[in-house]
């Protein structure tokens, strides 16, 4: 019996973790890893930090070298995009022929019948209509995006140069969107000496992710470093004919605000509209470079099988299963977190790895059960060779994320977004040391630390591993801090 492959779609953090876990947990059948980017799997968090800064070369972002990948015996198809999935037949449609291996018997060109599928297609950067045709307007999601932006920041704005010149500052960079990504890029660009304006619909940076008090602490740090913070909604761009290097495109000269332009924190913003202030001159922000950091779209557009719910990411059950034999992991997956009792989706690096591993384990458990059940015919040879069938387990991680801005390191466990109650303790304003507790429905569900020593940060994890009554959580946090 020739075994069908397990296919992992999306060759990044979650997809790689899934592929490695499939092998570790005993899958010996064929294993196909499909990614539409041309690069070997690389890590994204350094894109807005060390890579943008110029401190790291792109090779340093590789999650595995070719040598480290070799033992996995992957059918690795880079530059290949999955364009469809027939759920009942567990059959993928693929385009792009770079790296497509000879098609085996019984497979039509461009389709791949699978024993199981793990979907790890992440999210893509949101952009504004027409922005991709304007030179100087960037997004920051992929290595190619980051290299393009770094090139512009490194050499005074001429595209195409690879080198990172020391002290190449002096560009006017407008960052649209003051979430985590926009804030990190603002910090790097300031450190490189550029003039940085950070515009958000919300007055306080990162408020949606961490609440207004932690956001205000970050805002103070950005202001102290010379970032100009504005509240406003972007309406479009002013452009001029591009220089010859821009290749006939138009290049950006300014960002137009529909309303706002109020210095953040000075005018009281509400409902996204800044009241008063914002004279005409505030509505046109001169820019040599623009970074759009306005959120993301889950990579589900290619999933058109009505058996799948792709409303906001790919909807899964507590086992990360979207359908029989079809699992999802990472930024794209919205699953029923068994501890929090509602569907959640995270765009956090740690979740990508942990969920990739969980999806792999549960898919193998399902295939093993299929193989021993009456419908054993669909089972692949690989499953039979696997170790004794593991149990499927609900995926119940303690979510974790971090962010680095200047010397400030934020680390958070549990749920910090969507809180109905936040208690922030500023331990040292000047040093930006703080601790925040996030609550929902009278329970503590998340905790964030800025500038705390690692031992204390790790101790906080246990406090929010499961929702805990608010008062009890406060006491346990006080104890964790006192223990040093």
């Amino acid at each position, binding site marked *: 019996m020739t075994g069908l492959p397990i296919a992992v779609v999306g060759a990044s953090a979650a997809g790689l973790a899934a592929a490695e876990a499939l092998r570790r947990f005993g899958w010996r059948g064929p294993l196909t890893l499909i990614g539409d980017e041309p690069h070997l799997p690389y890590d994204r*968090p350094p894109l807005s930090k060390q890579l943008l800064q110029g401190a790291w070369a792109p090779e340093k972002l590789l999650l595995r070298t070719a040598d480290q990948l070799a033992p996995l015996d992957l059918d690795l198809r880079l530059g290949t995009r999955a364009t469809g999935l027939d759920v009942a037949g567990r059959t993928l449609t693929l385009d792009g022929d770079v790296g497509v291996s000879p098609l085996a018997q019984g497979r039509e060109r461009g389709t791949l019948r699978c024993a199981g599928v793990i979907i790890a297609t992440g999210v893509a950067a949101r952009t504004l209509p027409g922005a991709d045709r304007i030179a100087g307007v960037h997004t920051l999601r992929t290595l190619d995006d980051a290299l393009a932006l770094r090139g512009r920041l490194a050499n005074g704005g001429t595209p195409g140069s690879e080198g990172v010149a020391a002290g190449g500052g002096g560009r006017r960079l407008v960052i649209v969107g003051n979430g985590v990504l926009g804030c990190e890029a603002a910090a790097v660009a300031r450190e490189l000496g550029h003039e940085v304006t950070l515009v958000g619909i919300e007055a306080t940076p990162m408020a949606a992710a961490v609440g207004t008090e932690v956001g205000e602490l970050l805002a103070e740090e950005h202001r102290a470093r010379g970032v100009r913070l504005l509240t406003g909604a972007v309406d479009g761009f002013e452009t001029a004919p591009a220089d010859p290097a821009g290749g006939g495109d138009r290049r950006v000269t300014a960002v137009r605000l529909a309303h706002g332009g109020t210095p953040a924190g000075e005018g009281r913003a509400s409902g996204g509209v800044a009241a008063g202030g914002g004279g005409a001159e505030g509505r046109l922000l001169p820019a040599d470079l623009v970074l759009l950091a306005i959120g993301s779209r889950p990579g589900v557009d290619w999933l058109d099988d009505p058996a799948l719910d792709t409303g906001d990411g790919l909807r899964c059950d507590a086992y990360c299963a979207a359908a029989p034999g079809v699992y999802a992991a990472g930024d794209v997956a919205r699953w029923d977190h068994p501890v929090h009792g509602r569907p959640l989706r995270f765009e956090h690096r740690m979740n990508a*790895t942990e969920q990739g591993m969980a999806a792999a384990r549960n898919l193998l458990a399902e295939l093993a059960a299929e193989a021993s059940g009456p419908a054993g015919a669909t089972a692949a040879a690989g499953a039979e060779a696997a170790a004794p069938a593991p149990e499927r387990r609900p995926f119940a991680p303690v979510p974790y994320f*971090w962010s680095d801005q200047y010397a400030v390191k934020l680390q958070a466990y549990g749920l910090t977004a969507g809180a109905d109650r936040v208690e922030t303790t500023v331990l040292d304003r000047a040093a930006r040391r703080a601790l925040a507790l996030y609550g929902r429905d009278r329970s503590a569900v998340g905790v964030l630390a800025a500038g705390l020593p690692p031992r204390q940060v*790790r101790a906080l994890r246990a406090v929010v591993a499961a929702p805990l009554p608010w008062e009890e959580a406060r006491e346990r946090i006080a104890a964790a801090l006192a223990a040093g």
Partner: protein
Amino acid sequence: MKITLDADRCCAAGQCVLIAPEVFDQRDEDGVVVLLDAEPPAGQHDAVREAAAVCPAAVIEVRA
């Protein structure tokens, strides 16, 4: 088992220390990983492999 670290890639997530506290620690100043035992006893091997798999910055390399 022999462990090597590419410590300057470490993002200080601390996951390795949670999983294998006898093998990994973190520096107090910046949270960067510290290797306590490069050749841990057999009883630690599973935990070390899990830590290497989970580490979000692919810092930990394990050789048989």
